[in-house]
Each structure stands twice: as C-alpha cells, then as structure tokens.
C-alpha cells in the first residue's frame, strides 16, 4: 500500500508537515549562507573555513550555557560584536596577506585555516559531542497536524531578519554602496578613492558575525563537536551558487530550494538520493545559469 497514492486528509497533513519542514530547514541553511554569500560576492574569496566559524559559535553557546547557564538567545547579543571582532582579527592575520593572491592560494589558505580551527577545537575541547539544552529546545508548537520546533522557528525568523537587514544595508547605506562598487570593479573603486582594504575588512567581519550568530542559534538543535561545521558548509556553497554570488535574497530563496529538494527527495525517492538530487541541481545551475538563479548574467565574472 503506497501512502503517496491516495489524496485524503492524511496526505494533506503530510504535505503540510513537509512544507513546514522545508521552510524551517531552509531558514537554518539561509542563516549560514548569508555570511558566506557576502564574503564570496564582495571579496571573491571562497571561505572554506566558514563552517569552522559556525562551529566556534556553537561552542560559544555551549560553554556559556554549561558554565554560566546563559540562554543561547542571550548569548546571541554578545556573539555579534564578538564574532565581528574575530572577523577583523582573522582578516588582519590571515586574509589580508592573500586577498590579492591567486584563487589557488586563497583556497589553500582558507582550507588550512579550517583544518587548524578544527584541530584547535579538538585539542581544547576534545572530540566529545556536546549539547545545549535550554528550556525552549524541547518546546514544540502544533498547528493542525504540523509540528514546529520553537528553536527552529526562532532560527528562521532571525535568518529572515538578517537577510532583510543585510539587503537594506547593501542597498541604501554608503558603506553598502562602497562594498558593491568594490565588488564590481576593484581597480576602478580604488581610483575613485575607495579604501578597498577597509571594505574587505568590513565585509569579512560582517560575514563572520553572521555565521557566528548562526552557530549560536543552531546550538540547541544540533550537537556541538569540532567538525560540526562540515555538516552544513557544503550545502551553504550550493545555496550561494544557486542564489547568485553576493545576493542576500537569492541566498534565502536558494536555501529554501535546497531544503525542498532535500525534504521532498527524502520523502519520495529515499534519503540516500538526496545529495545526488541537489548536486544535479547545482550542476544544472552552473551549466545553464552560471550567475545563479537570480543573479544577473555576467555577474560571475565580476572582479575576478
């Protein structure tokens, strides 16, 4: 008896639940992808260490909770300046030296940073799985037959807020305009008197602050361990390419698309196929719309 064959009230409940899961999972991916798309889009650097900053955010939430009993949502407030600062320091120590180097050098550098951070976490905090269990982690909201996990709803809301905030920042502030100008043509921007080094520093710091916040927000949902970042970061690249480099709204929509492929694919075909499905989508986008589903034609070559 194939449950997908007849469409009764039970099937409508299933569809509703799958829809809810897609949106909430998409929110988590978007949270991670917005910072990545910013760094990718403006600096043209593929930050392979992105997932490790997510992991650091998760550990910040874990230790604040384990040692001081602080709720992750309180830690969130401190995480923004803290990770902004981390971004500035990382930029000064690591990224500044390679920002004008070839892509290969940048890839080696960020991969190296990623492995270094994973092993630093392993040495400092061991490889044990850790858990953050604030009271709201097990709160489940039910609407009709669909279940929403409260922590996921909050993560989704923050993802949307960050996307809108960054979109507005890029579009309407002076700093945002300067960043877009630098992304479009680094040399021309320099000639117009823009301090591109400062722009890159700011971009990197904002990007890291975003992913640090993401780490704190997902900590009640997933276990915390040194390689936790790897669980999400590959997906974040797919999302960024789907949405178009540097496109915030694209990242949000891309996240929901990847999540829907994952959820529907797992339900209909089987979870073993889910990665095949979204990487097929990824390749199709690269072949047919290299600028991303929502990007402008030619944007993929800008500033390279």
């Amino acid at each position, binding site marked *: 008896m194939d*449950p997908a064959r007849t469409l009764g009230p*039970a099937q409508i409940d*299933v569809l509703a*639940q*799958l829809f809810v*899961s897609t949106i909430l*999972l998409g929110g*988590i991916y978007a949270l991670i992808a917005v910072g990545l798309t910013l760094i990718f889009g403006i600096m043209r650097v593929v930050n392979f260490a992105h997932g490790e900053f997510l992991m650091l955010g998760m550990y910040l939430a874990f230790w604040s909770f384990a040692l001081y009993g602080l709720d992750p949502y309180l830690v969130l407030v401190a995480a923004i300046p803290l990770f902004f600062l981390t971004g500035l320091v990382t930029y000064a120590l690591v990224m500044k030296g390679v920002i004008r180097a070839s892509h290969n050098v940048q890839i080696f550098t960020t991969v190296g940073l990623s492995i270094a951070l994973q*092993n630093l976490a*392993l040495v400092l905090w*061991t*490889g*044990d*799985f850790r*858990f953050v*269990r604030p009271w709201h982690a*097990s709160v*489940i909201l039910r609407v009709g037959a669909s*279940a929403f*996990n409260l922590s996921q709803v909050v993560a989704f809301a923050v993802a949307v807020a960050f996307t809108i905030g960054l979109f507005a920042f890029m579009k309407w502030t002076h700093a945002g305009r300067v960043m877009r100008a630098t992304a479009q043509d680094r040399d021309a921007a320099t000639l117009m008197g823009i301090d591109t080094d400062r722009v890159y520093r700011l971009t990197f710091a904002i990007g890291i602050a975003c992913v640090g916040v993401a780490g704190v927000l997902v900590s009640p949902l*997933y*276990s915390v*361990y*040194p*390689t936790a970042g*790897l*669980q*999400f970061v*590959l*997906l974040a690249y797919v999302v960024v390419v789907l949405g178009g480099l540097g496109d915030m709204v694209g990242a949000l929509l891309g996240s929901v698309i990847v*999540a829907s492929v*994952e*959820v*529907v694919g*797992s*339900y209909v075909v*089987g*979870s*073993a196929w*889910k*990665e095949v499905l979204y990487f097929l989508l990824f390749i199709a986008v690269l072949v047919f719309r290299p600028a991303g589903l929502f990007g402008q034609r030619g944007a993929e070559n800008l500033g390279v």
Partner: protein
Amino acid sequence: MHRRHLVVVSAVVLALALVAGSSSGQAPSGEYKIGLLEPLTGPLAFEGKRHLEGYEIMRDMINDRGGVMGKKITFAVGDATDPTAAASEANRLITRDGVKIITGTYSSTLCGAASEAASRQNVIYWESSCVDPRFARRGLKNVFRTEIDGTGFGWYNIEFIAKHLAHRFNLRPNQLKIAFISEDSSYGQGVTEAARQRAKQEFGMQEVASEYYAFASTNDFTPIIVKLKQLNPDVVHHIARGNDAVLFWRQSREQQFVFKALVHAGATGYGSPDFGKALGADGNGPFVLAEPGPGLRLDALRPEAQKLEREFTEAVKKRTGAEPYASHRLAGAGLWLLKLVLDEAKTDELDRFRSAVMSLDLPVGSTLNGWGVKFAENGQNANERVQHYMLQWQNGQMATVWPEEFTTIRAKWIPLGPWDQRK
C-alpha cells in the same frame, strides 16, 4: 667531494645503527613491547582515547599478575587518524620499534588497512573492536579478531526482537512489521543487511521500509519520519553513528511517531553515552546491543571472570569516574585474550602463536564481558562465544536487560507507549 663522502658514510652508519636497533627488538630488560594503534587525533579520537584507557588499565592488571612470557607489557603507541596513517604507523611500529604483535584500532575504517600492513611484514595483528565482516575474509594467516563481526550484531538484534519482544506485543514474529533505517557506512550496512536477511528468511518478518542515509550531512529526519509514520512499523531497527541518533529520536517525538520498540547495535549513536547526556529521561526506551553495563549479574559468570569484571570495573571507575564504556571493555577483553594466547604459546612466533589461538576453547561466561573463546580458521572469534547484551536507556543510564539470566534489571516500556508516558 670530501664533504659528500662524509655524508654518505654517516648515512650508511646511521642506517646500520637503525637496523641493528630494530633487530634487537624486545630488549631483555624484562619488558615485552606490543604495538598499539588507535585514532588519537581527528574525528575518531573521542573513541580512540577510551580504547587506549581500556588497554592501559588491562595492561596494568596483567602486569600485576606477572605480565606475559615472564615480562612486563609495554606499549609502543601509534596514532591511526585515518586508513593511510593506520598503515604507515603500523609500518613504523614494526620497523622502528620492532614489535611482533600489533593490536587496536577501534574503527572498521582503520582495521583493514592496519592489518594489511602488518600482514605484509608477517607481524601478528590482534583486532579488539572493529566489526567489518570483510576483515576476516581475506585469508590472512596473521590476522585475528576477538570481537564479534558485524553480521553477529544483526543476528543478535533479530534474535532479541523475535524471541524477547514479539510475544510481549502479542504478535508472532511473522506478524511483526519492521522498518530498517541506517547510516550508510560499511558498519551500518553490514549490520543492517545481516539483520534484514535473518528477519526475512528465518522469521518471515514483514519489512515495511529500508532507508540508508549519510549521517554526516543529514540535518533533518522529518521526511523519513513522516514516511515511516504512515507505514506504521512495530519495530524500528536503526543503526546510527553519532548525532543522527539524537536527531532522529528528538524529531520522532516532535512528530509523535509511536512505534513499539527501537533496536540499535554498537557503541555509536544510541550506544554512545552522549545520547543520554543529550536527552536525559526524554531518551528512555531504545535498545542497544553492546557489552554489558550496570545490571550484569556477576554470579552468572565463572569465578575468574567475576574477579576480572570486578577489578576492571573498579579500575575504570577510579581512572575516569564513571562505569566502563563499551570501548573500555572491548579493549580490555581483547588484551586479556591476547595474554591467554601468549601464556599458552610462550612465543610470538607466528605458527606457534596461531596454534595456541586455535587451541583456546572457553565457554560463554569465562572472561571479561562474559565472553567465551573459540577461534575459527579465519582468525575470527566465534560470534556465539562473544556474548552480547541488550541494554536499554532508562533515565539517563544504559541498563543491561537481556539475556535475562545475566541481568538483574528488566526491560521497561514494552511496547513503548505515548512519548510523554515513558518515565
């Protein structure tokens, strides 16, 4: 020219010195050196370190009893982060430290490569914990394994479901609806396929689903759970690897997916202490096939096994502040069996060592973990002698609940009721 000459000469001298050093092997200083490979850094390190603790504790216990072949055991330790490192570290232990026996390596991803390397140099490889069934099927004469193989896990799980659970659901085994879900590594597949085969062929259970997933990139189980919920299985057979156990259990609760029992095998996933830490009493219910834990009836074991059990448990508690984990027990029992063989063989020369291995014949209940010993020609300890136990999560503790003749604690929540009534 003179300088180059000098360099060549010193290189030759150095090489000779190294060869001389290695051929002297076990110095007659009253110590016997065994190579020990475990993943001590990298993603498997958290288990590798527990294994190392288990080995060290058992080493001290053996040394207190006079060591092996009249010498105290010492370890030359190698860090087997991944299969490549496992092979190169095995080579290093053999050529640099001159060991004649290597033991380890915790993971099914490592034991194949490490034993292959040992085999090439005709060194004895003594595996205490990997379960990949392919390990003992390569026709290698120097390779032995004390732990059960993965097919044994599947066999035990179905045994438990068919003979202990089914009648308590008022069902015959062939009326049971069973759903298989597993992470997709060689471990998960080995156990799951063995279980599927036995469930279908021997008991005629009704398989309603079989799903594999990649544990490192599965961030949401809701679609699988929604699907399973409609298929309404009595038993979920889930082999999990890490965080996936916690996520599946938590999301099943969110979705109010009610099944009668969940059965897992091995020290990962539901078998990891992390599962209890993550969920506390919310994690009540799942069954884990593993080495014995709290509730083991010591008086069901032979006297010498009782003594070993008591001493080993105390030593682990003293060192870690907690009951022994499965990883401690696998390492401890593995090294103890090696001692028994060396006592018998009195040498590490392969042929005599091998015949000593084959001559060992101890019934269940004879040694640590209640294990017995009877090796087959392929170097595998017989699955039915490697007694395994069903443990159940009960209020943050994994309690030994089956076979009942070995335990003082009884399984609860059969069948599992609604999610909020499992206290």
